[in-house]
């Protein structure tokens, strides 16, 4: 089952609505043939290859500059880093030819590493460095026209912001930042069509993917910190339940918007079942906010037909599920009971949905 509609399906829907002339399809075919000859097909795994290759190249370049300048010249690192970032952003705007793009990407990543190393030495302040990195990444996000770098810049900016939030050693601030990431993610997905029409259309895909990965990854780290066995951080602990409830509200809001878009009453049986299930999930996993957060990402991904995001949501949901049962302070026997019980609840819910809302009653007319 292909999740996204094809061009033909979109064109025929537009024709049915009287928005397009009957001869639109042959013209679209001609236009697509011309586009296909010039446009680049770059699926996600090719972008991963591009990004990985650029990282490898950047590692060698960092070694080169390290050997050339010596490791003590922080001002040279800082200035060279800025020059490399600025120059590569400028070059990338002039030409998107593949070799030049790859060269720019590698040098830009090197520039960011040199900038970070130089700034850390000059300021001798973790917050100052994080703020500098945040500003640089935001500048690159807006001015460097390349999807791979925009993805990396968003991830870098989000991590720098989390690092800044952690500096006062109050974990509630980190939780607030994570909740902010979640809110932004839900907003970007729910209003995807509107954002795609605007000037920032090119930013949407790299920003959403990077934000989702950093958000869920950082949430996983936050849960480990809460467990306090593998990782320990200084600072006042904050109850994870507040974050869980905040994320639950966002997920329930998204669910309500989806229901509205599907023409289903939120206050009806179907709406109440969905919202009650989400609420119950959040209440049962108060110390593992990732479960409800992953459920939210899963809903967003299916809502906007993004297969890669769907895979990401499933992977994190399973990961947070494992963490949830690991966190339970129970014997193996009691954990077994909890696992069996929750599994049966989910299977029961499925049965309820299938019986209460049979296939014929949900077919779109």
């Amino acid at each position, binding site marked *: 089952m292909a999740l996204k509609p094809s061009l033909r399906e979109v064109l025929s829907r537009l024709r049915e609505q009287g928005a397009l002339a009957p001869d639109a*399809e042959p013209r679209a075919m001609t236009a697509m043939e011309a586009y296909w*000859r010039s446009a680049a097909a770059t699926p996600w*795994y090719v972008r991963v290859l591009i990004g990985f290759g650029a990282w490898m190249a950047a590692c*060698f370049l960092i070694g080169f500059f390290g050997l*050339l300048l010596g490791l003590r010249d922080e001002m040279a690192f800082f200035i060279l880093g800025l020059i490399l970032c600025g120059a590569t952003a400028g070059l990338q705007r002039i030409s998107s030819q593949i070799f030049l793009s790859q060269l720019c990407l590698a040098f830009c990543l090197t520039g960011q590493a040199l900038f970070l190393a130089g700034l850390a030495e000059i300021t001798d302040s973790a917050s100052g460095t994080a703020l500098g990195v945040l500003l640089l990444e935001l500048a690159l996000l807006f001015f460097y026209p390349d999807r791979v770098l925009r993805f990396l810049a968003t991830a870098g900016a989000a991590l720098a912001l989390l690092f800044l939030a952690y500096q006062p050693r109050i974990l509630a601030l980190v939780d607030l930042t994570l909740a902010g990431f979640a809110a932004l993610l839900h907003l970007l997905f729910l209003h995807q*069509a509107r954002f795609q029409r605007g000037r920032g259309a090119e930013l949407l895909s790299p920003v959403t993917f990077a934000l989702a990965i950093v958000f869920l990854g950082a949430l996983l780290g936050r849960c480990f910190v809460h467990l306090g066995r593998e990782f320990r951080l200084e600072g006042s602990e904050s109850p994870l339940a507040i974050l869980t409830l905040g994320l639950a509200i966002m997920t329930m809001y998204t669910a309500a918007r989806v229901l509205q878009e599907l023409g289903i009453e939120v206050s009806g049986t179907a709406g109440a079942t969905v919202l009650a299930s989400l609420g119950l999930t959040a209440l049962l996993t108060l110390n593992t906010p990732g479960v409800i957060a992953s459920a939210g990402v899963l809903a967003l991904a299916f809502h906007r037909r993004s297969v890669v995001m769907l895979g990401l949501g499933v992977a994190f949901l399973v990961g947070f599920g494992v963490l949830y049962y690991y966190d339970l302070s129970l014997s193996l026997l009691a954990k077994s009971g909890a696992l069996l019980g929750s599994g049966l609840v989910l299977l029961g819910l499925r049965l309820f949905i299938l019986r209460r809302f049979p296939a014929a009653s*949900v*077919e779109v007319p």
Partner: protein
Amino acid sequence: MTKDLLDLDATPERLQALAAAGVLPPQVMERALELAVASPPRAWWRRFLSTTLMGLGALLVLSGVIYFFAFNWAALHRFGKFGLLMAAIAAAALTAWHLGERTSGQFALLFAAVLVGPLLAVYGQAYQTGADPYELFLGWGALILPWVILARFGPLWLFELVLANTAAILFWDQVLDDANPTALQLTLAALNGAAWIAHELLSYRQVSWLQGRWLPRILAVMALFPLMIATEKLAIDLEVEHGPLQVLCTALLCGTLAGMYAFHRRVRSELFFLTLGAACVLTLVTTLVGHAVFDIMPDVMAFLFMPLVLIGEIGLVVLWLRHEARSRGTEDT
């Protein structure tokens, strides 16, 4: 097997191209973007919820059963343990039989197949059989094979293959302690490669349940990875440490890469396989060039030259992939 260009996914970039060509006027473009990201119909949501709840529910129940037997409850007699497990297996198998080829039926059979493992483990625990763990996995795989054949369900076949891989790795580790590791890599590549070829042959013959592309992609990675380990070791050491088998692995890798390209050109356009093959070639070439560069040049120059090599390689690979995608009309998913 190339796709009609209008059957490609309606991505914003493609809709933008249609707008730029004047096919979609600005006011229609807005509507087209909305249609492209509109929420799937209710029936799809229902199926999505049903599959997700069933998958997660089955996973949780299975984990619960495994935890229960891992607890090794002393108060429960061994016959009680056997009885519980066998009742669960029988119930799952009967449910699968009742539900037939529906997804829920296939999940029920997967559930039964997974439970055979704990049953064998409890048997080994109760009677202190002294069997090696590889025998458990081998027996597990052999016992569930009839179900796997009957189920016609990709995840169950993958599970069977994972069991076979695990059994082979444990056998090498526990029985053939000092054996040539390349022989294991070759065995795993042959096993996974055979599964991959079988999948492609059956898929080509239009076997309906093998039309998805996620399984052959995983099988391709599982077949190439062991061959790459052996060949990369050869490229790093620059000497044949593990005898002719290592050379055979390299030859097999080259043959597989050539086969993947021929498959892409003649049977089915598949950019993922090309990318996977390109990543293998790129890794090997970079390793060999790295040897030469660091031998010939001073370190500073080598550190400058290597990224240029990498950038050139990636650039060439991306250019080639785009050319192949354009010439074959490959869907970029």
